[in-house]
């Protein structure tokens, strides 16, 4: 991954089209929020739509983190199938001992 400063950009003359081109790298390399990057404040002041875009993308990325905590369980049949498969494999590989071990799962 690129480190901040890897991109050679003249921030003083940056235009919206160039900004768009560099945006994936700016997001990837920025330690904090792109919307708060001091190098970009001049551009944002002149082009509020650029700032609006960045803030929207930041909002999406922040909200995405909340999706990490899941809400849905798989159905019970998944665990039943896992038990069944493991029992089969155990019976094949170690005979009766494995059967006894896997019976503990039930």
């Amino acid at each position, binding site marked *: *991954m*690129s480190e901040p400063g890897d991109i050679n950009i003249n921030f003083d003359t940056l235009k*919206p*089209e160039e900004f*768009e081109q560099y*945006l*994936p*790298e700016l*997001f*990837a390399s920025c330690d904090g929020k792109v919307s708060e990057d001091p190098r970009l404040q001049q551009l944002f002041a002149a*082009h509020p*739509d*650029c700032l*609006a*875009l960045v*803030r*929207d*993308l930041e*909002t*999406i*990325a922040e*909200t*995405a*983190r*909340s*999706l*990490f905590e*899941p*809400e*849905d*369980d*798989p*159905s*019970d*049949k*998944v*665990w039943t*199938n*896992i038990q069944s*498969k*493991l029992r089969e494999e155990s019976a094949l590989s170690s005979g009766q001992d494995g059967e006894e*071990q*896997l019976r*503990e*799962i039930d």
Partner: protein
Amino acid sequence: MNTEGQLMTQGPPAKPNPGLFKRNPPIAGEAEAIEAAKNGDAEAFSRLYALHKRRVYTLCLRMLGNVSEAEDMTQEAFLHLFRKIGSFRGESAFSTWLHRLTVNLVLMQLRKKGLSLVSLEETINPSEEDAPKRDFGSRDPVLAGSVDRVSLERAVASLPPGYRMVFVLHDVEGFEHNEIATMLDCSTGNSKSQLHKARLRLRELLRNPSSESPKPDMSTEGAK
């Protein structure tokens, strides 16, 4: 390209990197369950299933977009876990390791079906009409600083598969671009670019929900 074996074998024990545990802090009782499961303790394996089934299933569901396939892949992921848990050395959080295993299985499944690479290529080189719109200078409404989880989940589900995969891996699961590039067999530049396009598409979808394309079987109704 990483193979399943590469992802499942961590080599000699190494000092854990604290940064790797930021999103996956250790769970109480998990370490003991892991060690017991390594010794073939079936009850311990059952505990690990209970601890991680939701996240593994949700990851599969988001990547595959289909309840039935997600359940099948959850089953496969835990069967692999049972067989390979002895190779877990603790350099990363267990859940990170398990998620990597799961992602790899899902990708292998997609490749078997001939879908993944096509989908990724589709988003690496999207057609004009498929590409996110560029709207600098427009005065479209912004997201007003908030997006609710349900709307975002729905929008993510309607992303093209390649966009969805990179977005889920990076923004939801917390993988780095270099990790995603390895998993998807693409460059880090491509991963960054796809993530950006995915976010742009999501912005469009969230501002204009009617532009969502119908998404197959993301409901979990009937699967419980």
